[in-house]
């Protein structure tokens, strides 16, 4: 449970003091009440379905049910951009030697 709470807090933010974490499960009659000053979060399931959650409790329940804030199967764009920048920076640093090399030839 503690491990679950860690994951939940990482995605949903720190548990508010006045909120009790209860597992709602698939109760169709339960309605999540939007929480003031909670920034709406977008969560994704394994099939790529999207849900916007508007309270910590709602977020926690979805995360507990396997939803996440990472789009499944997507590319790690931060890593790609980092590689691109490494390439750009290296190319920029050697550009003079590169140009000189061709000039001499």
């Amino acid at each position, binding site marked *: 449970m503690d491990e679950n709470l860690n994951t939940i807090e990482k995605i949903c933010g720190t548990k508010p003091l006045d909120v009790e974490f209860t597992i709602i499960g698939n109760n169709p009659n339960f309605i999540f009440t939007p929480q003031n000053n909670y920034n709406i979060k977008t969560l994704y399931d394994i099939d790529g379905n999207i849900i916007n959650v508007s309270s910590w409790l709602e977020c926690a329940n979805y995360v507990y049910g396997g939803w996440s804030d990472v789009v499944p199967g997507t*590319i790690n764009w*931060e890593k790609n951009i980092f590689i691109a920048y490494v390439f750009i920076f290296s190319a920029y640093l050697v550009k003079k030697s590169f140009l000189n090399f061709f000039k001499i030839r």
Partner: protein
Amino acid sequence: MTRKLKLNGLKVFFLLFIIIFPFSFGNNSKNIESKYLEFSTLSYYQTQTCDISFFDFWRENIGNKDVIIRADFFSSIDCFGKVNGVDYLGESYNVYIGTNLNINLLLQSLFWILIISFIKLPRKEFSKILSLKKTPMINLIFISSLFTSQIFSESKFYTLYNKNVDTSITVNNYFVLSIFLALLIVLKISDDVITPRIKTIPNFVPYIFLFIGTYSSANINFYILYFCLLGSRNISFKTLKHRFTIFYIGLSILWILNQESINNYFDVDKIRGFVNSENNRLSLLFWIIVFYLLINGLVYIFDMSYSFIDFQNLRTNFLISGSLTVIFGFIGAFSSYFNFLNFYLFGLNKNGMTSLQSVTGNTWRGFSASAEAIGEFYGIAILISLYFIFKLQKVSLFQSVLIGINFFGLIKTNDAAVLISLILISVIFLISELSSSKKGAIKFLILFMVIFFFVLSLAYSILNPGISRDYDFLTENLLTESLKNSSYFESENLFMENLLSNSNYRDITYLEDYEEKLSGTTRFLLQNYISDNNISYIPSFSSILSLTSSLINRTDKWGMFVARYDPNLLEFMFGSGPLQYNNFYNSHSVKYIDGLILPHSSVLNTLLFFGVTGVLFCLFGALKIFLKTDSDVKYLLIFYILNLLKSDSVLYVSTFILLSFTVSICMKSIRENSA
């Protein structure tokens, strides 16, 4: 010549590439088409997020007056430049275009660096005296690391403005690694392009009011980044043992020790890029270092380039830059698409105005984040132009048109203080120029001042019938306003309202929660106002302050400041540190006020940042300059200082750099005269 043309052609091509390419790529794999946005297609856009490019959307929605384009700061990298969401607002649609910090840093910087690259490189025979050597890599790495550390020190800001922010310290944290690398690339290219031109760059200072340089999704400004790099070059044993550095280090220790890490977030709003957004020791240390490096960089460059300043060229650049801000402000007001491009490409702190209608106080800020700041800039452009018309006895048609556009911009900002100070400074200058003797000039000046203030008072009485003749009202106004903003008025308080309407201030001091509810400043003004030691027929300090604030229309803003400002002795003496608003905004509870309300006086800002010591330092510094400098630039400085007394413009990077530039010219002329 042909080579130069080719090179410029290539630069123009790159500029267009930067503008068009990143905003033209939709999701080709899904083959989704853009549609005309109306109520029937709203759900289409709400489900097809991150698929349609900005330019595709624009093409289909030319002439769609219901569309308002906004930047979506919180976009992932793959959604950059695409429609990322649409909100229906009853009459219009907010369309959000994705921007992402990792891309913004490189893309926006490249745009600005390319623009700067159009400035001519010094000819080879002058390059030795006009150019600087390239900056060592160690400095580039240091400055990149410093600005990357802001992600950690102001994590609340970055989490709010960016998706996928990762503040863990691991080798797999590609978010932080790519930010560091982007900064390193930007600094390296800036160093290669700007540094060789650096001594002629001050002639182009006015363009910082056009290219503002604030990165989207970041609390950093391009000019600060570059000037900090120059500042790091200027660090030597000599600068470190300079008395100002030693004093600054001493102050820094005090600020850090006096800081209470309550970690609250300050909404930076229109001063983004030049203010601390969080209240913790790391962010305080970050801004202490950045401020020192910035000043060091500015002093270094303005001192070095003094002999290369061409004032006529500077005048033309002021006029062109001012005119372009008016023109782009209009374009942005007419077209929401250009409004977004203005915001992104010019690095605005805040979206430009979307209509030509004036807002609060009948002001129109157009392109700029602040009507006051841009009004002062137009005022300076006009003042310099008038100076040259007087000195050279000629003005070209082109210049006349530019002066007209700047004047139009000034009228639109409705900045009466600029107009009044423009007249005042022009007359003072003319008197000192036309009088044959110093004695005669002083006589004329006194006569003019008497007439000037008489006319001003008359105008105030006519414009404010009733209250202007009510002495009690004018002398209590500031105190009343600060009390109305105190936590006594968190909800309706008939008892307190009754005390205020009867001017029964003494009874307020008998209230049990008086010390808890009122700030130290309000209590000081109150005690001063009711003090038995006040001499009859001589207004108290509190009355004079209130009268002044009423006359310059600053009572409500200063009243809010007084209600909030509750410093301890150290803060009052030395401030909270450069660009620190958190203590001020969060240390004392006041009535709820929506939005960011700044103190509306650069003196009050200085008091917050550097305490009474800072205010006195600036006061004596300014006095020394006025008394010792022979340079006519002092008129510009007087004009600026008069306006800064009642505006927050110094909080904007552009104004801060221009003010530093003006001060450094005056200081340099003093040093040259005494040498």
